[in-house]
Each structure stands twice: as C-alpha cells, then as structure tokens.
C-alpha cells in the first residue's frame, strides 16, 4: 500500500466519521428544535411541504367574487353556445 492509498483511507475514515457525527448531531438538534417550537407556540396554520425547488406560483390576486362571477358568465356563455 503506497502513501496515497494510506492518505486516502485516512481521509475516508475521518471524513465519513465526521459526516455521520455531524448529521447525527443535526438529527437530534432538529428533533429538539421541533419539539420546543411545537410545545411553546400556539398552533398555527401549517404549510404543506412543497415538492420541488420550483419558485412558488404567484398568489392569486383576483377577488374570489370576481372569479366566481366570471366563472358563471363563462358557464352561461357556454350553455348558450351549445344550444
């Protein structure tokens, strides 16, 4: 086993060891955080987890009444055309 190989093995042991330690710590820290937050805050409306990195679509800025009115108008229009 040459020097590079022994360096590589050292690096792997230290590296994977550290990655696991770090992420295990993070698992516990995250669980603790969630527990604290969920205990000490009033229930709030939660957001469902989103799927992808995609930018969220802009919030619908149309008044629901308007939307409803337009829907009705379209429905009326379509039903007329079918006749």
């Amino acid at each position, binding site marked *: 086993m040459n020097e*590079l190989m022994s360096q590589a093995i050292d690096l*792997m042991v230290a590296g*994977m060891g550290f990655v696991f330690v770090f992420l295990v710590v993070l698992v516990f820290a995250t669980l603790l955080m969630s527990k604290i937050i969920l205990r000490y805050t009033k229930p709030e409306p939660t957001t469902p987890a989103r799927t992808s990195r995609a930018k969220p679509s802009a919030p619908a800025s149309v008044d629901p009444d308007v939307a409803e009115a337009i829907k009705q108008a379209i429905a009326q229009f379509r039903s007329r055309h079918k006749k």
Partner: protein
Amino acid sequence: MEKLLTLWTGSGLFNIEIGQVIMIAVCLGLLFLAIRKGFEPLLLVPIGFGGILANIPEAGLALSAAENAIHIAKPQVMAALAGVLDVSYEAGQAVTPEVKDLFKEAYKDASYAVVSSANTVAQDFGHGNGMLQNFYTVIIGSTIGPLLIFMGVGAMTDFGPLLANPKTLLLGAAAQFGIFGTVIGAALLDMFGILEFTILEAAAIGIIGGADGPTSIYVSSVLAPHLLGAIAVSAYAYMALVPMIQPPIMKALTSKKERAIKMSQLRPVSKKEKIVFPLVVLIAVVLFLPDAAPLLGMFTFGNLMRECGVVERLSDTAQNALINIVTIFLGLSVGSKLMADKFLDAQTLGILALGIVAFGVGTAAGVLMAKLMNYFTKEPINPLIGSAGVSAVPMAARVSNKVGLEANPQNFLLMHAMGPNVAGVIGSAVAAGVMIKLLG
C-alpha cells in the same frame, strides 16, 4: 498585401492545432447534449460555449496577460519577463518552443507575488488578460461564484420534507460514501500505476460523488484548479444521467417487496420550524466545522431569506436575477478550463471514469443505509429513497419516486425522497469542509 498577410498568419485556420479542433468538437458535443438531450442545460450551455471560446487559436481568451505575452513572444517582452520569472534568457536569443515552455513552466510554478509582477510587466507591453481569464479570476478564483449559486439554491430549497422526518439526514450522510470511495478509487488507479494523482487531486475528483455542481466547483477550485474543467463537466454530465445510472443499482440492491413499501404521510411542518432550521444548521457549523462556513453559511442564508417571509424581494433576487447572472459567468469560467493542453490528458479520462463510480457508490450506500435503518426504526423506510441522498436535486428524488411507482402504482415517494435529497446537499458540503480542513 502585407496587411492581408498579417490577417492570414493571424487567422485560426493558419494556427489551429489538432487539440483545439478536438476540444471544439467535444464542446459542440456538450452543447448538443445540453440542448437536444436536456443535460443540465443551465450550466452545460455556458460551459460548452466557454470551452469553444477558450480554444480559439491566437485569441488567448483563457490566458492571463503574461501567458499571452509568452505565446506571442516578442523578444523585448521575453527579456523583461525573464527577469521577473527568473528564467535564463538573453535579450535577442531566439524564442524556440523549448524556450517558451521554460517560461510557461516558470510562470506556472511562480509565487502569487511573482505572477502578479509578471502580469504587470506584460500589461506594460500592451498584453492583456483574456476575457475568460478575467471571468475565472473574479467568479471562481475568488470562490464567490459557487457560493452565490449555493445561496440561490438555498433560497430555492424547501426543507419541509426533511423537517417532517429528520432521520432521513442519515441517508444523506451515507451517500457521501460516494465521495470518499472515489478517493480510494483514485488511489487504486495510482497504486496500480495506471494514472498518477496527488491526494489533493484525488480529493477534488472524489467530490464529484457529492452530485452537487457548486460544491464540486468550489472544492476543486481550492484543491486542484487545474482539474476544475474535467471535474465540473463530469459532475454536471452525470447529474443529467442520474435517471440512467441509478435505477439498475437501486433494483439490484432491493427486493420488489422492499421497493413496494408504503411510507406514512409526512406531518405538516410549521413556518417557525422552517425559519429556525437554517439557524440550527449554521450553529452546528459554528460549533463543529468552521471550514464549511462559506458553503453552508451562504446556503443557510439563502434558505433563511426564503423562509423568514420578511425579505421576499431579496429572496426573489437571489433565486432569479442574481443566480442567473452568476450562472452565466460561472459557466463561461468553467469553460475556460477546457483548453486543449489542460483537458486532453489521461487524467481527464480517469476523472470521467471515476465520476460514474462515485455516483454508483453513493447511490448504493444510500440504499443500503436505508435498509440498515429499517432494522432500528419502527416506521418502515422504503430503501429507494436512500438513493436520493446523493443530491442531484430534484432529479434523484424523482428517480426514487419513479422506481417506487413501478413496484407499486399507489406508492408516491417523491415527498419522502426530498428529505434525503436536500440532506445530501448538506452532507456534501460537510464532506467538502472536512476535505478543505484536512488538505487545504
């Protein structure tokens, strides 16, 4: 007439070398893959185009002022450079290719201060840095480019699925085996005399296994800048190939029954948890791995801007105008490392071979880790989500979902796979920090 001769002797047709022809063909191939096959086009279009620009004969777009001066080799400039670079060259001596190589070697090995002086001398004689060289220095040499991309990625990342099931972080840890296993692979190639690598080069190649573009570019710019071109191309190409690389490995390591495991629905995650989580990650970095601070600092900053809800205009800019601008320059800068004399090398073939090993090992490690975890947890974990731990967000998570649906058409794994998927980003950044700490 004399002028037309100048134009002809200065033309590409007169000067082009076979290496440049090959590299331009390779870059056209990259563009084809990016545009026609959809291989990570946001990066590979600029990288491929930058590669063509870098290989234009005589244009010297990817060379520094001093390198351009050495290429053109006017005697009085060479005499001036000889003093700075400590090359033995007498004024008036003929500039043979060997002499040029002497100068090039001296420049490559020179200290920061000498490089800076040599470039000043070259600029005094009217030579300038090539455009791509300037881009590279500002965007990658300073490390700012990959860090800003990482900030933007943070601003686009939703940690909700991870927060709903934090133990999937361990899958992201296991998949980093791809990184370190590849380092071993490089050492093996070296041991058997097939290729030569230093430990810095081996580590930089290993990071391809992180399956994360900006992390790969950051690490290789720090540890082995001369391999950056091959490493970045390899990383992005294999990320695009994830839907082909992963499924066979996933299927080989799991039974159909395991693949059909249905996971219970994720709990809803509160806004507050999402705001605090990036700070928790940051504090962990503060306490345990300061060397990961640039990468994970920018990543968590982007994520905090996204989630905190009070700086939407900044978050929006980080996800759009800023990341796009940086992507353009980052791609062209990476392309500048695709010059023929640096890229057409046996090492590059080694990097391409090791890169696919890295993805495979990472995938396998993630799947096996998930199987292992099933011995210890009561909620069953579908091992298919383990493969998403290599990152390649969100492609790897989609692959998990697709393979899961094949085994059981009611089995929607996408959300469950997003947890290990983003955990893989954190894991690779941690691995990057460890490597820089120990070797940098």
